[in-house]
């Protein structure tokens, strides 16, 4: 999946270059569909075009946090039994969380702008908005924890536990609009429920969700590889230090 061909394309491979090209083309088409082809909403007018960014962004944030949680569980299970400490799972958790935070942030910003023109306010402390900002902040905390200097396996375990604690909030965010009274509307896309969206808008929303998924996948693969490179750099620095000490010992003897 992931050979690095040369230093010019450090984290790119044939696979990611194809994925990247597909992502760019898909984004162009998404822009065309979302901003030009899809119609204005009967009530909201052009403001409905925020739907095609806002809903896919939170969808991909949820998916990324699910990936982080699953990888964290696998890391906790395998870190004791594997020679490499199961660090593959730790890297996957970290890269997915970072992309998840990025899209959770986009969800908040697009939601605030959308709220300004429809609700008449950028922000309200209702259950959906409050739990979403809490989700964003806790995963920022997770990313901060990953940067604390410590033994990689110890740091990985601490982060994995934090990831699982943070994940508790994901279903709360999603179901908050059903559990409590909120200014925020109920879910626009739900499994097993007839969508209340006109055809062209519905298909544009589905297509945008697919496009954002492709973009996020590309980002996660690249971020994973950068984390691996960071580890290699740290190992290289350690090897160099040990080699220099060995040389000093040789000279001393």
């Amino acid at each position, binding site marked *: 999946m992931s050979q690095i061909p040369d230093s010019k394309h450090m984290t790119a491979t044939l696979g990611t270059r194809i994925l990247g090209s597909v992502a760019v083309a898909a984004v162009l088409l998404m822009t065309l569909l979302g901003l030009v082809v899809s119609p204005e909403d009967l009530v909201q007018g052009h403001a409905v075009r925020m739907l095609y960014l806002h809903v896919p962004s939170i969808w991909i944030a949820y998916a990324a946090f699910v990936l982080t949680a699953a990888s964290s569980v696998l890391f906790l299970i395998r870190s004791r039994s594997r020679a490499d400490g199961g660090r593959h799972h730790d890297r996957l958790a970290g890269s997915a969380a970072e992309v998840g935070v990025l899209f959770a942030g986009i969800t908040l910003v697009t939601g605030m702008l959308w709220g300004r023109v429809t*609700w008449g306010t950028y922000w309200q402390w*209702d259950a959906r908005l409050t739990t979403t900002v809490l989700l964003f902040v806790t995963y920022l905390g997770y990313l901060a924890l990953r940067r604390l200097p410590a033994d990689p396996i110890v740091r990985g375990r601490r982060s994995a536990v934090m990831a699982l604690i943070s994940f508790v909030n994901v279903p709360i965010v999603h179901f908050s609009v059903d559990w409590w009274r909120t200014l925020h509307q*109920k879910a626009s896309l739900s499994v097993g429920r007839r969508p209340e969206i006109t055809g062209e808008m519905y298909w544009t929303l589905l297509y945008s969700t697919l496009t954002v998924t492709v973009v996020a996948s590309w980002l996660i693969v690249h971020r994973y590889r950068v984390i691996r490179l960071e580890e290699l750099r740290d190992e290289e620095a350690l090897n160099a230090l040990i080699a220099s000490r060995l040389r000093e010992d040789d000279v001393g003897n």
Partner: protein
Amino acid sequence: MDLSPRHELGEPDELRRKVHRNRRWAVLAVTALLIAAAAFVTAQGLRNATLFFRNVDEAVEQRLELGDRRFRLQGRVVPSSVRSESGVTTFQIIHGCVVASVRHVADPPELFTSPWIPVVLEGGWTSGQVRTVAGADTHYFLSDRMLVKHTNEYASANDQRISEEPPHDFLDDCPFDVPAAKS
């Protein structure tokens, strides 16, 4: 092989440790800030989030208990009742076949003009004789903040026109008639 720290290396080693310490403190400070932010958000959220608004029928039922307290009121705007005069908008909102008269003293959001739009108003009950589509009332709701609560229904503006009709089933079983909006 001696892997003990080399103090004789002096400054660069000392500097590295200092940078390492500073970085640890910086990350700890950021983490503490994030935890404080999370606590603030939770406190704010719990205070406001769970009972974000009362529906008209509940607010009317709890009128005595609510007194002149400030709260959020939710209902759909009766299109035929909207009047605007010198910065004051008066209208009626309805939920669960209970109607409240509203006197709103600020600019309403743009989407307020959509018929039967659900709104959330901030304000309180005020004494005063009013007439609504459901009959006479002894109180009206004095509001200074309005939020439009749009639904998750989307329809193309190309092939539909805004309906003046109330949402399906919304007025069924109500013991009064709501006059149609003037078009």
